[in-house]
Structure formats: structure tokens, C-alpha cells
């Protein structure tokens, strides 16, 4: 099983969290009393089918949604109990790369990356320029600073999104379906980039993805979501050797593995 770190090494913790959507008569339970921990400085992948609540978990971590019950702890602080101001302060510790990159259409690449620095720091324009250009260089985006998001390829948008997410030197970086819409070569390139940046900067990475098994190579921990419940694994081999039928089915469908049937089932047949 996963080598979960001791409590002090836990960056994020979900404790018996429930979340549903819709009004009373059409209530749909997405997360049903789920509990798990995300270790600090490691990469955790949250996987599962569509509509299983992967992105909901990210929104709960960021305080963009509130759970119906349970606790969402970030660095020991219960996010739903925070006021607006404390929540804003907590969010400065996060970087987020959105599914569609969420770049501001009316701002060019430089302005997009500089935005958090201009809004959240007292850095001078010269310092901002220096920092942004250094980041552009690190992410191989030099020379693209004047371009607008509409002029960028999918992979470049992701890199600009990552550059923006890393500007405030966050402790935790959340990736929401980061390779959606990219071809396999670009997907691998982006994963290598994530891995390189995570190792260089040492942040806690949480990657929500259905791009399996590609994303599993990055993972120090894998969380599988299924019908509102979770299972935690250290790596993909643990998933393959799981005895739970729905996890085996998931592994067969997503990883293309032809799995040996569990002993117990073999006996019965």
C-alpha cells in the first residue's frame, strides 16, 4: 500500500467528506464520506471515470465549493470554516492549472503570467519583467510573450498556464485534467515538464486526470474514485493486483491489462 507520511507530513486531508448537487428532489451524491490524505512534496494522482467527482475534489480543496459534511484540511486548516479573507490568504499558497488553461483572452502571454505578481505582490515592473522572462525561459516559451492565447497551440497554453500557476511559488499545485485535448507526444512532453518542475521546486502536486496509465508514471500516490468512494494506492501495480472487481474492471478498461482473475474467483469457477 501507499507509504503515507505521518500526520505532520500531510499537506491535504479529506475526512468523511460528502458532497451532493441539485435541490432536494433531484439530489445527486458525488462524494460519499470519503477520506484520504495527500503527502507533502509528493505527486498524487486522482483518477476515475467521468462524473465521479475528481474536479469537485479540487474545488473543495480550493474552497470554491463547500462540502455537505466532513472536513477538508489544508495544512491542518479546515477550508470550509474559513472566512473570505482567510480563504484568499490560503489560496496564495496554491497554484492551479485548469483543464482549458483558463488564460485571459484579452491579455497576452506576458500579461497573463505577470497578473498574479501585479495583483498579489508589491514587486516593481522591472522585477516582474525579470521574473516572468526567467519563467518563460524555463518553460521554453521565450519569444512568445507578445502572443495572445488564441495564437497559441494547446501545449503552449498548458505551459503558459503552468508558468502563471508557479509565479507566486506555491506550496501546492493542482492540475485539473492537464492533458485534455493534447496529442500523445505533447501529452508525454507535458508530463515530463510537470515532473521536472515538481522535482526542481518541490511542491505538492495533485493531478486530476483520466489519462491513464500515462499519468501514473508521475505518481507517488494514486487515488481512485468510484461511485463516490475512494481507494488509495502507491502505484499502478497495486491497482492491477487489487481484488476489488470494479478496480480490476477499471484497470482492464483504462490500462489495457489482461489481468489474472483473483484466486478466490478462480476457485469458484
Amino acid at each position, binding site marked *: 500500500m501507499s507509504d503515507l507520511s505521518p500526520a505532520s507530513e500531510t499537506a491535504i486531508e479529506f475526512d468523511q467528506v460528502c458532497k451532493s448537487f441539485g435541490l432536494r428532489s*433531484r439530489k445527486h451524491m458525488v462524494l460519499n464520506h470519503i477520506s484520504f490524505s495527500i503527502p507533502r512534496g509528493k505527486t498524487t494522482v486522482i483518477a476515475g471515470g467521468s462524473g465521479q467527482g475528481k474536479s469537485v475534489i479540487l474545488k473543495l480543496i480550493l474552497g470554491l465549493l463547500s462540502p455537505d459534511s466532513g472536513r477538508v484540511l489544508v495544512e491542518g486548516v479546515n477550508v470550509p470554516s474559513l472566512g473570505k479573507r482567510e480563504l484568499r490568504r490560503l*489560496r496564495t499558497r496554491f497554484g492551479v492549472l485548469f483543464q482549458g488553461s483558463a488564460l485571459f483572452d484579452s491579455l497576452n502571454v506576458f500579461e497573463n503570467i505577470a497578473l498574479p505578481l501585479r495583483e*498579489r505582490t508589491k514587486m516593481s515592473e522591472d522585477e516582474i519583467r525579470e521574473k516572468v522572462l526567467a519563467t518563460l525561459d524555463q518553460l521554453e516559451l521565450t519569444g512568445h510573450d507578445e502572443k495572445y492565447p488564441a495564437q497559441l497551440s494547446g501545449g503552449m497554453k498548458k505551459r503558459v498556464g503552468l508558468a502563471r500557476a508557479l509565479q507566486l511559488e506555491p506550496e501546492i499545485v493542482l492540475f485539473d485534467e492537464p492533458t485534455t485535448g493534447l496529442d500523445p507526444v505533447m501529452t508525454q512532453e507535458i508530463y515530463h515538464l510537470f515532473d521536472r518542475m515538481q522535482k526542481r521546486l518541490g511542491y505538492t502536486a495533485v493531478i486530476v486526470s483520466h489519462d491513464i496509465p500515462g499519468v501514473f508514471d508521475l505518481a507517488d500516490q494514486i487515488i481512485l474514485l468510484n461511485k463516490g468512494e475512494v481507494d488509495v494506492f502507491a502505484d499502478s501495480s497495486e491497482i492491477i493486483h487489487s481484488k476489488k472487481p470494479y478496480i480490476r474492471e477499471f484497470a482492464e478498461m483504462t490500462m489495457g491489462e489482461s489481468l489474472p482473475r483473483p484466486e478466490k474467483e478462480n476457485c469458484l469457477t
Partner: protein
Amino acid sequence: MRLGDTALYVVSDLGHMGVFLFSALAGLFRRPFRFGEVVKQLRFIGAGSIVVIFFTALSSGMVLGLQGYYSLHKFGAEGMLGSAVSLTLIMELGPILTALMVTGRAGSAMCAEIGIMRISEQIDALECMAVDPFRYLISPKLLAALISVPLLTAIFDVVGIFGGYLAGVKLMGVSSGAYFNGMMQSVTNHDIRLGVIKSFVFALLLVWICTGRGYFVQQIRGAGFGAESVSKVTTQAVVFSSISVLIFDYLLTAVLL
């Protein structure tokens, strides 16, 4: 049960819109101020609307001049034309038609812009960067509208009165002196104040409703998803905003007249 759900939805929607308005107003006083964005919005909402306001005002004023002359002529009171045209424009038509024109031209654009930013997660991105989306996006639009709509209304009034002059004096032969003298005799500070108050309230209403609908595009029942939701909500915003302007016009007139 469906009735109960609808009632809950309406109450919750009104609550969200109330908090939205409060946050947008509070954003006006939060630092750092976005002067550049306010100027950009002044150019878009204010300067960009001058042409449409000019032609609407001119045609409205000319129609008022002709209709007024036709009605007043029956009683031999053509001399009151200046008074009738100016009071109608300053107290009613100026603020209302300006607000409706700005809603159609700039309000719809604001709603679509905010709606697209919402569905493409740009507003979520702002929140995740700990940037207040109200201060960053909504308040500059609100401030620009609060400045430009009263000024556009003033332009509407002046051009409308000139339109009435063209129709009444130049076409129908009413005395120029009687037209302007009637206007100066009848228009009081109170009438002008009423028009100014209305234009401020309408500016607040149209920005509130149009940006608010865009902001909550994903929570609006029956709006659908993606681009379709933005188009539906934009239509809804223009309709709600226009109806609200008309209702508040009556209420303000009843209270302040």
C-alpha cells in the same frame, strides 16, 4: 415539490444576486484600483454609445416635436411645445431610452464577456490566484457605467430638445423664442435632479443584472451548457434589465415626483 423547488431556486438566485451587488459595490473601494480598466470601460460604455444615443435622441425629439405640436395645436397651445418636449425628455425619455440603448449595446456585451470568462474558468482562475473577481472585473464596469450613463443621458436630453426644435420650430413654424422660453420657464432643478437620479439607478441596475447573469451563468436553471448557456443568459439579462429599468422608472417617479 416542483413548486417548492422553484421557490427555493428563486430565493437562492435573489440571494446570490444581492450578495453580488454588495460585493461589486464593495469592490469600488478596494485596492489596487484599476484606473486603466475604468478608462477602457468608459470608452466602451460611454464613448462607444454616443452615436446610437445621438440618433435615438434626435429621432425621439423630432417625434415628440411633431406629436406635441399636433396635440397642442388642437388647444391653440403651440407655445407650450418647448415645455412639453423638454420635460418629457429630461424626466422620462432621456433616462429610460439611454438606459435601454446602453443595455442593448454594452449590457449584452458585458454579460457575454463575464459569461464566457465563467464557463472558460477564467473567473475561477482569478479566485484561485486570490484576486477578487468583483474588484478586478465587475467594479470597473460599474464605476464606468455610473459615470457614463448620466453623461449619455445629458447628451440625450440636449440632442432630443434640439430634435424637438427642428420638428416644432423649423418644420411646423412654432416661434423659436416661445420654444426655448417655455422650456426655461417650466424645467426646474427638481426635474433635472429626478432625471439624474434615474440615470444613476438605471446604470446600477443594468450593470448589476447584466454582469450578474453572466457571473452566475452555470447556476441559471434551464440555461444549458457552454456557448448556448451564454447566449440564452445574455438574452435573459437584456430582457430582465430592460423590464427592471421600466419598473424602477415608475417607482422612482412615484416616490420622487
